[in-house]
């Protein structure tokens, strides 16, 4: 266990599925050869099979403290980095005979991608339902990836609990990918190593919040130390208990917490609204967020009711986040104020 633990809280009632976090993450870390297919953070529409396709059925994690077998997703299940025939269309001299199309690296047409089921949802009209789930490494307190690594290449930083893969030690054996119940670790086939969210530690170390937090236009993501009793993360997770871990029964003690989604009431057979309930089936939410989800949603509704009747609510105040900086925990440094010239690192040659 680490001395302190960083945690993320993501309010699914504020998330727009816009992928700004996804792109912020991507442009920071995964643009090199071998990482094009990696989306250390991706926002998926739920219900859905997600990324990789059907990851919830791929095993990993623990039951009664014992590791559960996992299986490795295939590239097609992940979705591959597509390229496009720009050249052919824009200057190929073929006119309308050709049009811009995505291609897998082997030239085939994509059948899956990181966000293939965007806005599809479930249910039946008019009671369709869906919501967005940003998904990154959970930096678990009991990381099954760490347990799985035969080479001690994965470790948990004592100072902040980030789970990191030492890319020098990693041999790309992918046992961690198997063991991660969230399938948030990628294989880099060029470097033959496993890679995943690094918690933006280079930013954290400079006091700058992770890109997915600082660049979320929905102001839906908080970061902070779980033991900071004055912090929003502590209050949402521990005090108000409205932020819940994903698939807690898998036993890895994840540190990304979600404020579960409220949803409009369904419309009954008679065409009338069925007030007092959401249209997302509670069974489904319990499967994702555990039995606490009922209480969390009830708390949210009760506090909203308080706000509606003009009373103050600490919970609502936190979720509103009047100042952008409230989302950033202790990492409020503005990156433009840093001097980070290239080539000033003596340890790299």
């Amino acid at each position: 266990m680490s001395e302190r633990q960083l945690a993320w809280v993501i309010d699914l009632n504020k998330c727009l599925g816009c992928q700004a976090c996804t792109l912020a993450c991507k442009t920071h870390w995964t643009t090199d050869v071998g990482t094009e297919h990696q989306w250390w953070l991706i926002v998926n529409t739920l219900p859905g099979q997600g990324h990789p396709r059907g990851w919830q059925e791929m095993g990993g994690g623990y039951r009664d403290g014992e590791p559960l077998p996992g299986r490795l997703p295939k590239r097609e299940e992940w979705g591959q980095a597509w390229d496009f025939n720009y050249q052919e269309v824009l200057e190929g001299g073929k006119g309308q005979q050709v049009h811009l199309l995505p291609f897998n690296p082997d030239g085939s047409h994509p059948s899956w991608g990181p966000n293939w089921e965007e806005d599809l949802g479930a249910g039946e009209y008019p009671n369709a339902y869906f919501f967005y789930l940003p998904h990154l490494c959970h930096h678990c307190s009991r990381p099954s990836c760490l347990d799985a690594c035969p080479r001690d290449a994965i470790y948990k930083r004592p100072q902040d609990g980030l789970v990191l893969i030492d890319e020098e030690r990693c041999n790309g054996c992918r046992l961690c990918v198997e063991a991660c119940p969230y399938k948030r670790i990628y294989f880099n086939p060029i470097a033959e190593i496993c890679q995943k969210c690094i918690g933006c530690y280079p930013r954290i170390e400079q006091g700058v919040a992770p890109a997915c937090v600082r660049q979320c236009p929905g102001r839906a993501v908080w970061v902070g130390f779980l033991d900071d009793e004055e912090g929003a993360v502590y209050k949402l997770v521990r005090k108000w208990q409205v932020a819940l871990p994903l698939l807690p029964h898998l036993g890895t003690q994840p540190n990304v917490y979600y404020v579960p989604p409220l949803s409009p009431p369904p419309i009954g057979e008679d065409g009338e609204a069925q007030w007092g309930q959401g249209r997302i089936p509670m069974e489904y939410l319990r499967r994702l967020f555990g039995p606490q989800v009922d209480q969390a949603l009830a708390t949210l509704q009760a506090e909203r009711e308080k706000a509606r009747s003009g009373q103050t609510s600490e919970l609502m105040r936190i979720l509103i986040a009047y100042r952008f900086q409230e989302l950033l925990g202790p990492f409020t440094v503005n990156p433009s104020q840093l001097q980070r010239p290239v080539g000033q690192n003596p340890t790299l040659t």
Partner: protein
Amino acid sequence: MVQVRGAMGLWAERYREKWRWDRVVWGSHAVDCYPGGCPWYVFVRDGRVVREEQAGTLPQIEAGVPDMNPMGCQKGACWSHLLYAPERVTRPLKRAGERGEGKWEEISWDQALTEIADHILDAMTEQGPESVIWLGTPEIGAIPARAAATYLGHVTTDGNAEFQDMSPGYYLTWGVFNPVASMDDWFHARLILIWHANPVYTNIHWYHFIAEARYNGGEVITIAPDYSPSAIHADYHIPVRIGTDAALALAMCKVIIDEGLYDRRFVQEQTDLPLLVRRDNGRFLRQADMADGGREDQFYWWDAKAQIPVPAPLTTLALGDVEPALEGTYRVRLKDGTEVEVEPVFQRLCRRLEDYQPEKAAQICEVRPELIRMVARKVATRPTKIFSGWNPGKHYHGDLMERSMALLLALTGNWGKKGTGTRSWAVGGSTAWFLLPLLEKADPAEAREVYRRLIEALETVRSFDPTLTREMALIRVQQELGMADPRTPGRMVPPAFLWYYHFGYKERWNRREWHDPSMKRSFDEYFQEALEKGWWDSGWARVWQQVEPRVLIEAGGNVLRRQRGGQELLLKHAWPKLKCIVSIDYRINTTGLYADYILPAAQHYEKVGFSMPSIHHLTTVLADRAVPPLDQAKSDWEIAILLLEKVEERARQRGIKEVTNRAGQAISLEGLAERATLGGAIRDEDARMDLILRSDAAIGILSGDASLAKLRQVGHMRWRRLGLLGHGPSQAADIRPHETFSPFRWHVEDKLPYATLTRRAQFYIDHEWFLEAGEELPCHKEVPPMGGNYPFRLTSGHNRWSIHSMNQTNKIILNTHRGEPFAFINNRDAEAKGIKNGDYIRIYNDCGSMIIQAKVSPAVRPGQIIVYNGWEPYTHRRWYSESDLEPGMVKWLHLAGGYGHLRYRLLHWQPIPVDRAITVDVEKVSP
């Protein structure tokens, strides 16, 4: 700073090394994005832009209201990828094959400019300067290119028609189409109706205010046929039948009136509902009816206290001692001695609303009566905003929808106060930007002087009619300026008439069966009547009877993607007439592919400018040059100047000194660049930008210390006032430094009249055509079968991943969805048609046909097909997109003029093609 113990080894250094840079530059995306204006940091490393990140530096404006940070979206977060993308163009290209074939020859700038200049001169001398057409697209970074049009007397098409964003119903009601609250004002709303909008896709950077308003005690109700992405965070979703929103709104109005929930004072004061209408002819009672020499625009109330007709004041909305009756039938004596019965509009409205009793309306809009009542009661009892986008205006009867929605707000007193109103797009601030062509020298003091003269001119207009507000005087000036000096700021012409004569729309618009059955005469009869009455003369409507377009220049836009009616229509009708088509852009888009020349422009990180100066944030946001233009690309401003110089040079060589336009004005071809650059003083784009900023400071828009150097320090500056140009005056409100911005305060607080015929929010339009159509009051009419008799309705909207077509081919973003166009279809419909998720389907109607991937979802309303727009045609098979299925109909009533505010002026009232809810069918095709 957080202390971190322990080194992590060499590998960890690699990630630290990735997050390094040499320079950080303020950047923004000077594109057609509303509100846009997101301040970004652009990180430069080894001379390349490597990344960008929202600055997050906007101040909190009002205590107790969240700030606007970190304003930005996913597109902005990878904008730098467009800099070095495969669709980037960095050298002048000349077509080497057929148009659209995609065969290019790289040529020098000199050759490109010489050939284009010759085409321009040929057109100007043979057909007149009007035959050179610059499309008025709103990419703000490309607008400097159109400076060339200003000095050459060319025609620029009206942006609002060009990009087909207009709210005709709001315009009919308020005389402006775009009152805009600041983004943070949404936090004050207690009820937000997301209606005809999908902000989860289209307002990513400020949707949080809606989510936060919910936590602040507000409620959100989304009204949409589909369970849209903006419905998922609502407290209720109303699955309205497509195109029946007017019925829904009117039913709510009915409930509010029946239950006595309406804001009587607001209605009496702010609206025309108490004005008297003659029962004999359905026209307002006018002073001209009552007395010889009486005004046509003086209307009457019935004073319930004195029991006499009283002139409703022209100069104020204040009721004074009068108690205007809302009900009752009264007799008044006309000037010829006859007596007529009159009644307030309100009473007529109540009769009309009998058709929208909730049980009846439910039959139309398929929303349960109890629900209609519930929402109506909510609207009537709390600050309510309607988050309406451009969607209603893209419906054939969108004006009726918007008028009904505005009526709902009027009855409940929901505008001119915090947390109320509607939503739109409006540019303001940066007045100096518009004034540049009027300056003689590069001196902010002169800008202030020109601005002062403009105000003086308004006062002169007001001296002729002291009842005019300054806003009305400004509108008068704008309306009169159409034919005048080509240097008039932002002069544009409504393109509908160009399209009618030359782009192939005449036949389309005369398809009687695609119009509403209440259109009594043929489209052409209305069209000819409008022209003969001179209603559109200020918009150069008749010029196109004589002038054939010869040169088309698209700077930063993509007409073949954009045009409702489809690229095929344009390629068939307009393209053969055009001797020269030029695309000025930093990328090759579909219009570029069909152009004769592509001039490579600098991308937004390679030039100096500002992003959309939007009322939403009231801030001038710097879009600075982080790196020099790649290869041979040039800034739009430089391209404009080079083109002017080349035209000048070729004109001299060809012995052409001047040409005359259709207004009889001589356009000199000498000293063009000299004038545009104010004697060379602003040839440099930094100098131009600095002059704009200093002039805005001199005018009082920005604080006195504004300059480019200052802006480079702070990145963005909040406005102090809105200024008189752009849409500033449409807001009818002042900026308060420490409060959210709400438009229409001059009306609601200061009782200043509206710029409508009746000088009140006008729900009764007694224009003869409107009376003939039965649309003098809002009502519901079914969407006509535009496209033929087919069972499905195709709807659309802006997508999540692009600003129109920009970014739609950004590889990194394409990888976050399906990487190609798709259509949403309901799962039951799909099943009935044998269509599975991911199958290819053909969508077709009498207009055209396209093939597209299907996404099957229960969130789609049965009978609905959704194709979000913005896809480059060249991402579609055979390049046929949904635009090719859209007939691009215009509603005949939008040709109406000669009536109060129903007159053309820049970016306002004009016919605009619609595209929503056209009829289509679908079938599965083999891949």
